[in-house]
C-alpha cells in the first residue's frame, strides 16, 4: 500500500508513486556536537555532499526520476533530453539553498515535480521553502514533502504550497489524510489561500 498522499483539486487521496527517488550514496558522517549535544540540524547552506558522492550516484537509465539537487546541477548535461521529456524532477533538503536550483534551472516549470526532504519533524524551514517556490519562483507543478513527514505537519505543508506528502513508512497515511483539514477557516493568508480571513469573510462592522 502506498504511503503517498496527493492533493488533486483540493481532494486528497492515496496514490501510487510513479516517480523513482534517486539517493546519493551513503557516506560516513561524523557525529558533531554543539554545547554538549549531538547536532541534529544542518545549517542552511552547509556543504554536505561530496564530489565523489555526486559522481557515484547511480542514475536509472529510464523512467521518471527525482534527482538530488547537487547531482542535478553538477551533471546537468546528462539530463538535458530527459528534462525536455518531463522525466526529471529535483529534490533538495531543507538546509539546501533554493537559489542554487533556480540559477541552474531558470524555468522551474520544466520540472514536473520538486520534492523537499525534511530530516526531522521540527525542521520548519520546509514551510518557507514551499512558500518561496510557489510565491517567489512561480513553481506550479507537484511539490512534495518526504522524510520525517508525519500527520501533524500536513496542514501546514498544505498551506505552504505542498501538494503531495510521502508519510513516513511506519505511519498510516490513510489516517493522516484527516489532518489536512484540521482547521476550516485559517486566519492568515498563505500559499493555498492568499487572502487572510478579513478579506474572505464579512466579519461585521
Amino acid at each position, binding site marked *: 500500500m502506498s504511503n503517498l498522499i496527493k492533493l488533486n483539486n483540493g481532494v486528497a487521496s492515496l496514490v501510487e508513486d510513479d516517480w523513482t527517488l534517486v539517493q546519493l550514496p551513503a557516506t560516513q558522517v561524523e557525529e*558533531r556536537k*554543539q*554545547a554538549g*549535544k549531538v*547536532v*541534529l*540540524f*544542518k*545549517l*542552511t547552506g552547509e556543504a554536505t555532499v561530496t564530489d565523489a558522492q555526486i559522481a557515484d550516484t547511480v542514475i536509472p537509465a529510464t523512467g521518471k526520476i527525482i534527482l538530488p539537487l547537487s547531482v542535478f546541477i553538477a551533471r546537468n548535461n546528462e539530463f538535458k533530453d530527459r528534462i525536455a521529456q518531463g522525466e526529471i524532477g529535483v529534490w533538495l533538503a531543507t538546509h539546501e539553498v533554493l537559489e542554487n536550483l533556480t540559477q541552474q534551472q531558470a524555468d522551474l516549470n520544466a520540472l514536473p515535480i520538486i520534492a523537499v526532504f525534511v530530516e526531522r*519533524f*521540527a*525542521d*520548519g*524551514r520546509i*514551510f*518557507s521553502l514551499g*512558500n518561496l517556490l510557489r*510565491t*517567489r519562483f512561480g513553481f506550479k507543478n507537484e511539490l512534495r514533502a518526504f522524510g520525517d513527514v*508525519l500527520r*501533524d*505537519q500536513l*496542514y*501546514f*505543508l*498544505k*498551506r*505552504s504550497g505542498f501538494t503531495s506528502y510521502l508519510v513516513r513508512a511506519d*505511519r498510516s497515511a490513510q489516517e493522516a489524510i484527516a*489532518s489536512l483539514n*484540521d*482547521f*476550516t*477557516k*485559517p*486566519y*492568515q*493568508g*498563505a*500559499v493555498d489561500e*492568499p*487572502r*487572510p*480571513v*478579513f*478579506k474572505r*469573510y464579512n*466579519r*461585521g*462592522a
Partner: protein
Amino acid sequence: MYKYDEIDQQIVDERVIQYRDQTRRYLAGELSEDEFRPLRLQNGLYIQRQAPMLRIAVPYGMLSSKQLRKLGDISKKYDKGYGHFSTRQNLQLNWPKLEDVPEILADLATVEMHAIQTSGNCIRNITTDQFVGVAPDEVIDPRAIAEIMRQWSTFHPEFALLPRKFKIAVSGTKHDRALVQAHDIGLEFYRDSNNQVAIKVWVGGGLGRTPILGTVIREHLEWQHALTYCEAVIRVYNLHGRRDNIYKARIKILVKALGIDEFRKQVDAEWAHLKDTDNTITEAELARVAQHFDAMPYENVPAHDASFDAAVASNPAFAAWVKRCVHPHKQAGYRAVTLSLKPHGQAPGDITSEQMWAVADLADEYSFGELRSSHEQNLILADVKLSDLFALWEKARANGLASPNIGLLTDIICCPGGDFCSLANAKSIPIATAIQMQFDNLDYLHDIGEMELNISGCMNACGHHHVGHIGILGVDKDGSEWYQVTIGGKQGNDASIGTVIGPSFSADEMPSVVQKLIEVYLQERTPEERFIDTVRRLGVAPFKAHVYAKDEVAA
C-alpha cells in the same frame, strides 16, 4: 475587549478536537515521546518535576471577569485550587493531569480561551503594557493591532516550527512598560510627523542565556505593514537561524552574527516581495477590531472626590495602598488599580481559585467586568472610580490582594523555579519569600522606594533577572544551588542589562546580601535618587565592596 465571532470560536473548537486526538494517539503509543513533545509544547504543556504544567494564553494580558471565574473553576477542578500568573501575562497550572488537558481546553474554549502557542518553537503570546488603553502617557492603543497579530500568528503555517521560541511585544506609550527592547520583535507605536500611526521596529532583543537588548531595524513602518514586515523578519530567521545549537538558536544570535545592517538588508529583500500582499492590514479590519477596545462608558465624574481625599487623610493603611497600588488614568475621576499577587511569604504571582472568583466579582462591581495581568505578575483593574477606591480596597484586603508593595522591593518578579520547573538549576520561590520576610516592615520598604527585584531559577531568565535593578539567578555548582547577583538592570526606554557583582551565594545568604545592597544605597543616595539611579551613578564597586567585605560575610 475582543469578543470572538463564529470564526474565532471555530478555530479554538477545532483546536480542542485536534489536541484531543494528538493526546489519544500519544496515550495509545502511536506517537513517541519525542514526536509528542513539540505537539504538546505548542499547546503549552510541559512535563515538570512532579506533574505537567499547562500554560493558558492570556492574549496581551486582557481578561474578562467571566474568563477569570472559569480559570478559578478550572484550577479547582483539575488542579490544586490555585494558578500562577507568569511574566508573559499567562496563567499556569502546576498540577493538571496530561489526560485531563483536552477537557481543560474544552472548558477554556467555552470562554474564548485556549493554550495555543504558549510554548514551543513558534510565535508566542503577544504582550503589552498592563495599562494599555488607560495610561495618561499612551499615544496609541496597540491592542487592535495586537489582536490582529494574535490571529495572524495563530497556526501561521510558515512559522509553525521555528528554530526557537519567538516573542513579540507591542507598546504605544511614551514610557515603555512592555519591555519592547527585550523581545525578538518589539513594536513601538507612535504618531509620525504626518500624525499617522507608525511603528518603530526593534529586533533581536531577548533575555535568557545571552541577554541582549534589541536594535532598531526600522524607524518608521506604516501600521498597515505590521504583518508582512514581521513575515519578512521571521522568514529570514526561519531559514537562517542556528538550528544546530539550541543556545544559539534565538534571532538575537543571528542578528548579532550578521550585524544589523546585513540583517536589515536581507529582511528588506524579502519584504520587497511581501509588501502590499494580501496580509496587509486594511482600514476596515483595523476599525472592526479596534471597536472592541473602545473606551469604557465612563461616567462624567469630577477629577477629585472628597470622600476619597478624607479616607487618604485619615487612614494611613489605605493611604499606603493608594500610594503604591493606584495609578493615574486618562479619564478624570478614574484610576487603575493593581491587585498585588505578592503578599509577603507567598510565591509571587500565585492566586487561589477563591481569589480569582473574588477578583472577578471586583471587576464586575468596579471595573466594567474586565481586568489585566501584568508581566510583573499582578492583576490590574483598569477603570475604577475614585469614589469606589476605598470600598474596593477593603474587599481586596479581605481577600489578601491589597499588599501595598507594588513597585517596591517585595513586588518580586519570580519564575516557578526548581520547586516546579524541570529546567531550573535552583529554587526561586523560597528566595523570594525569604527576602519578602526580611523586608516585612512597610515603613522601611516605602523608604527604600522604587525597586525591581527579579529572580530566575536558571539562565532561561523567565524571571527577567537581567533587567531587575537587583537580579538574582539560580546556578548549579557541583549539584548544589547557588545564586548569582546582578545590579543595575532596568526595563523601560533606558533599558539596561545588570552587571554581576561577584561570586555567587548560598540560599541562606541571599536576604542579607540584598540587605547589604540596600544599606549601600541608603547611605549613598541623594534625596531624589532611586536605587537604580544610585547604581548607575556609582557603578558596581561600592556595592560589591560592602557585600563581600570579609568581616561581614562568612565565606
